[in-house]
């Protein structure tokens, strides 16, 4: 069984979005996603300052066996990446909702309406 936290937004590609304040959000992958991937050995993150676009690839998480593209759940600018994941990518396996990947300044917050709430995401992540 995988955990789904309340209060977050979810994409069908198994990313979560957490609103920090204003238009600033954190993006990570869900517990379901990390379980599917297995032990994560590398996270390919975008550069700070780069643009991300809704449903476009912005990086990848890689297990021993395979690379899995990260699809952005929002459109905006990357204002930080989680540097802890460079040396400890396994943090995503240990606590996927704490191990955020990118921090984004979202262009238009109404875009979050495209995403799922926890109850809807729970249904597709079983």
């Amino acid at each position, binding site marked *: 069984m995988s955990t789904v936290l309340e209060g977050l937004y979810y994409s069908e590609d198994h990313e979560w979005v957490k609103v920090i304040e204003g238009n600033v959000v954190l993006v990570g992958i869900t517990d379901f996603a990390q379980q599917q991937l*297995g*032990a994560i*050995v590398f996270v390919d993150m975008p550069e700070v300052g780069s643009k991300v676009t809704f449903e476009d*690839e912005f990086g*990848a998480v*890689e297990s*021993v*066996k395979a*690379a899995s593209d990260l699809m952005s759940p929002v459109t905006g600018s990357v204002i930080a990446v989680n540097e802890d994941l*460079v040396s400890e990518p396994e943090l995503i396996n240990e606590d996927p909702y704490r191990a955020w990947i990118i921090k984004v300044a979202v262009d238009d917050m109404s875009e979050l309406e495209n995403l799922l709430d926890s109850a809807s995401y729970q249904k597709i992540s079983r």
Partner: protein
Amino acid sequence: MSEVMKTCLYDSHVALGARIEDFAGYLMPIVYTKITEEHQAVRTNVGMFDVSHMGEITVKGKDALRFVDYVFSGEITTKEIGKVVYGMLLYENGTIVDDLLVYKVSETECFLVVNASNQDKDYSWLLKNQGGFEVAVINRSHDFAEVAVQGPKAEQILDELFDLNLDTMNFFTFKFANILGQEVIISRTGYTGEDGFEIYSDPETIRVLWKVLLQEGVTPCGLGARDTLRFEAALPLYGHEISDSITPLEAGFKFFVDFEKGDFIGKSSLQKDLEEGSKRRLVGIELSEMAIPRQGYKVFVDDEEVGYVTTGYLSISLNKPIALALLRSDKAKIGTKITVEIRKKHYQGFIRDKKFLVKNYKK
């Protein structure tokens, strides 16, 4: 092959909580705990693999050895009984039907161990080419299950349990032995770059053997670790480093083609290649930047595409991104700077030898 098959150890894999996937038509364990842990168990201690999906074919009759020498890249006629030879079945054009082990059982019988994914194709290929030879080709895949016990402690644990006198066995030899009151074939062979043994017997015997080894603390390892281990040892996997569009010369396995013996399928094409030089060559690649080169990713020299990655990993033993890649021969010199295209970006690296890991075989 529409119906997915299970090996005799399937229930044990499920009970151990393995992640199970369809591989070559069999439900096989990919990983039990973590690939890295299973990998390290084999490098430092002892692990075991269910490889019952592998295909076994017996070739017997008056012309058995002559027939094998005609369809196989290696040479078997002059070898001693009890020898195992690695090599390939080749097409006329020198590309590869499959790679396999040939066990010389007697002067009139060989035991062939082939890839699960190719076993039907191999069997048909052998039947197709047996004309003119007094030989019987028998598909025995359903009679045999197989366990590979691999790692520096493999000999010790097997000898303590079953008293097999394994210290007298050389690398790439086999014998018939008695385990748990049943006859098995045991060979000092493997696919990990470590010392180890492969044991073949009927499914019931293998099931009991697996259970005993589990109780003794041998780490069960899935196909995930099998691939990371063989890759570090630069051992080829069909469909990656070798295939029906790659020759053994391109893949760097000239050593396993015996040009001195008589005619064999593929010989004239490979001889021509040998004289003219192969157009492609399998090399090692190491990236200087952190990224993981995966199968199919393109390799560039001076912005020109020169080949592709056949297998790549963040090496568990070396903790570096390394790969095997098939490149144009004129661009394949060791030390050459390359880039690999990964998700539309180019990452810097260089061509290196394929000795990622010093193999730990007992000669």
